[in-house]
């Protein structure tokens, strides 16, 4: 349905119909009040019509009130305002109507009471009595005339009664004269009206009245002919015992009759109205009440409709405001040019349009910022250098992935918190804090540009691993909020230094092998030849000295050769022969060789499954040998020193392996060798895997360095740490695919 038709049928049409019904009801009431006797058809329809209009109006009012209450209960925008307006308009409508109704009711009562003045009523009674008296005089005259007829009748022969009475009727001008017999039968009837064949007489009334006295007279209205005088006497003609009744009907003169009729009509009319004056009051009051009620209900309903229409722009505005408040900036108000609220609606639409544009721009800016943020995060995340940004108070604003990985921390744990707190809560970071803070403070206070860009080298022990860091600090330009910021870029150069270190050791080893190993064989052979040639030629003491000296030379040369061989081994260029090997099986094989060992240590295996790794079996076997020997040596030396104090010490070497997930989402093979020996010296621990970093009395100090090299050849990593209770552990991590 088109909006205009819908509006017409749902809003205008009911109002129009109700209004027309109301007008029709008022018109009919008006006609009925003015001329009730001639509007019987109208009266028939008036009450149903009025009831219908009352019901319709009451239903509409109740419907509107319930609707308004429902809107109020559901907290619809503007519902309270609308209800208040409806209440106010209704009150303003009802109060004057009630006041007017009250005074009108009383006024009607007073006016109707005034109609029935006591004096008028008395005058009417008097006029009626006067008329009666006047007519009574006439009736007595008629009676006198009839008595004369009665007396004359006694002198007339019974057979001449009829003619005599006819003659008297004409003489007296009577309407009729009738003679009844003793048995109440009509003996003679004489009348001027020739057509009356069957006259009706009030016989019983006449006889009853004559029973007390011999005459009677009374007024007698006869049909439409008007008022007559009825007179009757009892006669006994010729001294007869049987009494006859002679009665006559006389008409009055025209003047007397008209006057009497007027008095009668006026009296009757007044009495009728006077008797029903309460009914008249009620009638007019009810009519007035009905009109007032209909007017009042229509006014209330019209007030409701007007209130609803009046508050519609405000309600629309409130609803639109709520919609905007809830985020719907596309809400528009209809602009009606004939409405005073059109300017407000236009301003609202303009405001929402601007808000919408601003929101879109804000969203676009936010998106751009988000993109830049994502870009920056991606860039920072892809950097191998650790980056930490600080605000003016040295609180952490951002930490990139490399920094999280380097310091083994999570950004969310420390974002917004001070650098000091992060350093204090993270193991091994206090030296970092102590190193960078002086520079940060200096850069914050100093105006010198050179102080705002600084670089230092820091050595940290993180997770028992030595890290050589290069930290560069920089003061950031002012941020949007006007605060200064700092950025720390940290590079872990441990591997680079280690690589340089390894390269240097390799070069040393190659040179030693080349420069020292070659002369060792001739030296040894020369010493042996000297002993072989000269010993027989020398006496006993000199021969013994020669043998001892030459043996010393041979042994030292052998030692040097072993040392050079070890160097050669360490410096040997990686040449891996990779194959898929069950590494746990390989470990078991190696361990079996050391079940019986010098340290009397028990070797416990806890190897999980049979993982296949792509490794060089010989190199890994060497790795295992070095690790096991290293552990057994440590425990043996510890046992040697403990034997003097405690003989109950038992050595245990536990070897565990497991395949575990990596933080990057892959898998790795973890091998752990844990002993209950003396542990690793704390000072030695950071440099444990460097050549000749050992506290053992035996060995060349290259075992763990070779282990580290083998692990790195397999793209793995190795770390060592002391156990919490006793001994140390070596953890080897190898990639597992």
């Amino acid at each position, binding site marked *: 349905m088109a909006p205009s038709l819908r509006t017409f049928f749902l809003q205008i049409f009911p109002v129009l119909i109700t209004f027309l019904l109301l007008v029709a009801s008022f018109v009919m009431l008006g006609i009925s009040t003015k001329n009730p006797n001639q509007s019987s058809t109208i*009266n028939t329809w008036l009450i149903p019509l009025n009831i219908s209009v009352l019901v319709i109006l009451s239903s509409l009012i109740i419907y509107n009130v319930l609707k308004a209450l429902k809107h109020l209960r559901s907290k619809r925008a503007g519902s309270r305002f609308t209800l208040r307006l409806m209440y106010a308009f209704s009150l303003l409508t009802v109060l004057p109507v009630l006041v007017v109704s009250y005074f009108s009711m009383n006024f009607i009562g007073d006016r109707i009471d005034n109609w029935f003045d006591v004096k008028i009523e008395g005058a009417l009674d008097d006029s009626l009595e006067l008329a009666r008296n006047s007519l009574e005089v006439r009736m007595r005259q008629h009676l006198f005339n009839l008595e004369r007829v009665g007396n004359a009748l006694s002198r007339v022969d019974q057979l001449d009664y009829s003619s005599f009475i006819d003659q008297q009727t004409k003489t007296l001008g009577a309407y009729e004269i009738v003679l009844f017999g003793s048995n109440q039968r009509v003996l003679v009837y004489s009348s001027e009206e020739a057509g009356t064949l069957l006259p009706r007489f009030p016989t019983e009334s006449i006889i009853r009245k004559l029973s007390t006295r011999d005459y009677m007279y009374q007024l007698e209205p006869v049909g439409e002919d008007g*008022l007559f005088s009825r007179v009757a006497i009892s006669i006994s003609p010729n001294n007869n015992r049987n009494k006859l009744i002679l009665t006559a009907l006389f008409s009055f003169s025209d003047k007397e009759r008209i006057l009497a009729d007027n008095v009668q009509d006026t009296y009757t009319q007044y009495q009728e109205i006077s008797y029903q004056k309460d009914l008249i009051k009620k009638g007019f009051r009810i009519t007035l009440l009905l009109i007032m009620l209909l007017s009042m209900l229509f006014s209330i309903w019209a007030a409701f409709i007007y209130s609803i229409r009046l508050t519609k722009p405000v309600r629309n505005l409130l609803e639109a405001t709520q919609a905007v408040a809830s985020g719907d900036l596309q809400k528009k108000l209809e602009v009606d040019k004939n409405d005073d609220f059109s300017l407000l609606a236009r301003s609202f639409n303009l405001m929402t349009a601007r808000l919408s544009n601003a929101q879109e721009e804000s969203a676009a800016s936010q998106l751009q910022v988000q993109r830049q943020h994502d870009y920056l995060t991606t860039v920072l995340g892809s950097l191998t250098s650790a980056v930490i940004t600080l605000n003016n108070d040295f609180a952490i604003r951002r930490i990139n992935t490399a920094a999280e990985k380097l310091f083994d921390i999570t950004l969310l744990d420390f974002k917004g918190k001070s650098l000091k707190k992060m350093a204090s809560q993270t193991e091994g970071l206090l030296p970092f804090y102590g190193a960078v803070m002086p520079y940060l403070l200096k850069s914050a206070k100093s105006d010198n540009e050179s102080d705002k860009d600084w670089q230092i080298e820091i050595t940290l022990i993180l997770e028992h691993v030595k890290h050589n860091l290069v930290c560069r600090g920089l003061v950031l330009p002012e941020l949007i909020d006007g605060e200064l910021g700092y950025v720390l870029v940290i590079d872990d150069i441990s591997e680079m230094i280690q690589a340089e270190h390894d390269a240097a050791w390799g070069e040393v080893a190659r040179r030693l092998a080349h420069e020292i190993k070659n002369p060792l064989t001739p030296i040894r052979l020369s010493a042996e030849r000297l002993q072989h040639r000269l010993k027989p030629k020398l006496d006993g003491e000199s021969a013994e000295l020669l043998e001892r000296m030459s043996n010393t030379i041979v042994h030292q040369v052998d030692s040097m050769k072993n040392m050079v061989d070890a160097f050669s081994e360490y410096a040997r260029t990686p040449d891996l022969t990779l194959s898929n090997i069950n590494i746990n099986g390989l470990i078991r094989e190696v361990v079996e060789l050391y079940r019986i060992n010098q340290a009397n240590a028990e070797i416990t295996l806890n190897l999980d499954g049979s993982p296949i790794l792509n490794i060089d079996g010989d190199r890994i076997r060497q790795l295992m040998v070095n690790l096991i020997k290293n552990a057994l040596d440590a425990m043996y030396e510890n046992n040697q020193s403990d034997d003097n104090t405690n003989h109950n010490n038992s050595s245990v070497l536990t070897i565990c392996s497991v395949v575990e997930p990596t933080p990057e989402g892959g898998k790795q093979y973890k091998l752990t060798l844990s002993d209950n020996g003396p542990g690793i010296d704390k000072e030695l621990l950071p440099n444990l895997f460097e050549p000749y970093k050992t506290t053992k009395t035996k060995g060349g100090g290259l075992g763990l360095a070779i282990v580290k090299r083998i692990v790195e050849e397999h793209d793995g990593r190795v770390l060592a740490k002391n156990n919490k209770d006793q001994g140390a552990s070596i953890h080897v991590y190898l990639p597992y695919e």
Partner: protein
Amino acid sequence: MFRFPKKISTQLILVYLLFLPMQAHAENIDFKDFKLMGNPDKFEINTRVEFVLTDYLRSALQNGVTLEARVQFRLGKHNSWWFNSDTPLLTVTYQLKYHALSRHYLLSRNDTNEHWNFSTLPSAVRKLSELRKYSLPDISASLGDGEYYILAAADMVPSSLGLPLRIQSIFSDQYTLSSEGVLWPLP
């Protein structure tokens, strides 16, 4: 405690509602000694319609209010599956008023233009009640198959005072008299 079954209770209520209007008008106007004689060409009715005037009507009559009485006869046909149908035959109308000057009660019959006067109200009402040898119009043409009956009803109302809304009847049933619809099957 004894309880009527629901069906019986409903029937009792319906019967009560059916007889309620009869009880309300039972004492106002009553048809007595109704006799229907003759044949469809000319039916004659003898009956006595007893009007028992209320105090209000007596008082109103003596204060100038004219009373109008109507006795209506209708020819009805019984329908077994639908409401009975009836057609009006004729109506006898009377006017009864008090003549203050002569202290007489005037009774007039409108259809025959007859007039009577009585010195007492009972005699006037007695005259009003008599309906002797009253001839109905020829209804032979209206009769067909089925059961027919004569339906009689009477009422008495004060003549309109000239008030809007006819409010007399709103306030009390003392203002009007009416009879039940009484029916007699055709012989």
